[in-house]
């Protein structure tokens, strides 16, 4: 195994059984090297790296004062604001575990997350001082209100008090990230300091953010795609520019005045930028769009290239259980359409058959991952952990993603979907992804989602665009085998989305039940 080239590891002496604190590994260099450079900006103002560091140290001291112990969880539900970065680094510096929760998480999930994480402290906005809607914060857990924190950002004269954050035990968690996935209750992915620092550096090596970049982050910071933007900016000394969901109608103007050069995208944000750029075509400074979480479809990538000339597109693929798996070099989709790239440096991607044996190139199998970025499993859930994080006799852990795909001869990955997205119909094997891709190839179709056969129901197609459902089915029949053409296609004004920007298939199924009587 190698560490990513040209991102030097922080060389510090530390006792055995300990690792660098991720706050030092990620933030310290920019604080020391460019203290007065802008670190994080939101619609209310900006902090330099020195100010961010001071605010983080102040929060760490307050955790001490509140009696929070190292290893305790600090649950943070504040949205995309500057303070998020200070709370993150402050929590790490103190040794507590940062638990980001999105403002979109409903009370049903929130209740189970709080019971599972058992936080020692909650940080919430003033509007949620008492709780969220009907749900009151549990008694006995102190709540700090974001608007009343007033973190001290005045950098101390001379060396900052407390010096470096210092090493932490190797099993100390930096993050607990809850993913809802397809299960009923969210599971917490346990992310130790060393894994987080490795993943951030490995992604940084591939994406190469620059010190003069301004990274417009409108994806939620509670989502690991958003959260790692904080880390990638710090590694590069770049500026993190934050937009909250309320500001999305102004996003393009905000990108322009803020000088955004890099924009991480989920499909809904990409659609939005394309529409906003159609009404205001003045140029922007955007040089790079990245994408993960849910894939940008080819018509959307083409529209982005047209509306943002000069911007390149870097598709990526990952899962919170190891953060990121593959990254395609910017504009690599032109040469390898549909690929999500090759494995991060120092990590391995395998394609396995049902017995866990590697399959030859071009064959579809389960995507599995090995490397120093594989996280420590699910929080307090040994069974799901054993199922997905499989440890061999020699101690090697293989993360089974539950996703399916194939590798080309050069090790570029092509994602095909979840296990459930692969199915047989009329004797033919197929995947939802391949049918959706063929539908998107039809002139006038902007979005497509296929519900796979389930509980006696045949597959059903949903499409969005300026065409009729007959056009879609005829167009599809020209492109794929008959067995892959559904009998039913519903046209929608837009696909429903989850808070993280993925197609909400549960809502599509409900729509089928309610609007079309279950068919």
């Amino acid at each position, binding site marked *: 195994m190698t560490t990513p080239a040209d991102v030097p590891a922080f060389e510090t002496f530390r006792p055995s059984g300990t690792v660098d604190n991720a706050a030092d590994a990620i933030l310290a260099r920019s604080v020391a090297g460019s203290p007065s450079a802008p670190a994080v900006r939101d619609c209310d103002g900006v902090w330099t790296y020195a100010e961010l560091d001071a605010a983080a140290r102040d929060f760490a001291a307050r955790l001490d004062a509140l009696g929070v112990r190292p290893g305790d969880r600090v649950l943070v539900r504040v949205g995309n604001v500057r303070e998020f970065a200070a709370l993150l680094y402050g929590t790490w510096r103190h040794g507590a575990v940062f638990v980001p929760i999105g403002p979109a998480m409903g009370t049903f999930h929130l209740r189970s997350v709080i019971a599972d994480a058992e936080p020692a402290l909650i940080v919430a906005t003033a509007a949620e001082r008492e709780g969220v809607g009907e749900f009151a914060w549990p008694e006995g857990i102190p709540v700090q209100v974001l608007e009343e924190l007033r973190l001290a950002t005045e950098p101390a004269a001379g060396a900052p008090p407390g010096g470096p954050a210092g090493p932490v035990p190797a099993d100390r968690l930096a993050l607990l990230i809850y993913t809802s996935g397809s299960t009923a209750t969210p599971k917490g992915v346990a992310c130790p300091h060393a894994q987080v620092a490795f993943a951030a550096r490995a992604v940084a090596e591939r994406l190469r953010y620059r010190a003069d970049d301004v990274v417009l982050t409108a994806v939620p910071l509670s989502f690991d795609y958003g959260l790692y933007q904080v880390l990638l900016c710090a590694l590069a000394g770049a500026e993190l520019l934050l937009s909250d*969901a*309320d500001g*999305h*109608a*102004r996003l393009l*103007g*905000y990108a322009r005045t803020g000088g955004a050069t890099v924009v991480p995208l989920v499909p*809904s944000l990409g*659609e*939005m930028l394309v*529409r*906003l750029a*159609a*009404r205001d075509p003045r140029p922007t400074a955007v040089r790079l769009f990245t994408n993960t979480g849910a894939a940008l479809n080819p018509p959307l990538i083409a529209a982005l290239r047209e509306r943002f000339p000069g911007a390149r597109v870097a598709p990526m693929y990952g899962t919170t259980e190891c953060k990121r798996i593959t990254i395609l070099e910017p504009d690599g989709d032109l040469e390898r359409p549909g690929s999500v790239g090759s494995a991060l440096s120092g990590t391995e991607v395998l394609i396995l058959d049902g017995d866990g044996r590697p399959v030859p190139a071009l064959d579809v199998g389960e995507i599995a991952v090995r490397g120093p970025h594989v996280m420590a499993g699910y929080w307090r859930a040994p069974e799901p952990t054993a199922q997905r994080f499989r440890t061999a006799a020699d101690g090697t852990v293989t993360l089974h993603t539950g996703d399916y795909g194939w590798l080309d001869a050069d090790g570029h990955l092509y994602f095909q979907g979840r296990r459930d997205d692969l199915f047989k119909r009329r004797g033919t094997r197929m995947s939802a992804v391949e049918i959706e891709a063929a539908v998107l190839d039809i002139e006038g179709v902007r979005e497509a989602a296929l519900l796979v056969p389930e509980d006696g129901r045949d597959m059903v197609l949903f499409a969005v665009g300026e065409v009729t459902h007959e056009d879609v089915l005829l167009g599809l029949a020209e492109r794929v085998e008959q067995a892959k053409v559904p009998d039913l296609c519903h046209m*929608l*004004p*837009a696909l429903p*989305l989850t808070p993280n920007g993925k197609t909400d298939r549960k809502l599509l199924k409900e729509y089928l039940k309610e609007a079309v009587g279950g068919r």
Partner: protein
Amino acid sequence: MTDRCWDASYEKLLRGALPRLAEKETVSPDTSLKSVGLDSLAMVEVLALVENEYGITIPDEELSAGVFDTPGTLWTLVSALREQRTPGVA
């Protein structure tokens, strides 16, 4: 405050962009647009539609969260901008 004084094309445009509004028999000025499915993507769609329909440009500084609360709040802004554009024709 917000009586229903808008024209038919405004209502048609909202119904077209928001399927859950289309199911309702009448569009009330006080209906919460969020409750009928206005997410940020739909917001941008409605924005582009009203700008096209009425030949106005809504400046970014007017795009505060409150504008898209209800059909009434959005119509108030649209009518104000139309008046600015064609003085005397309210």
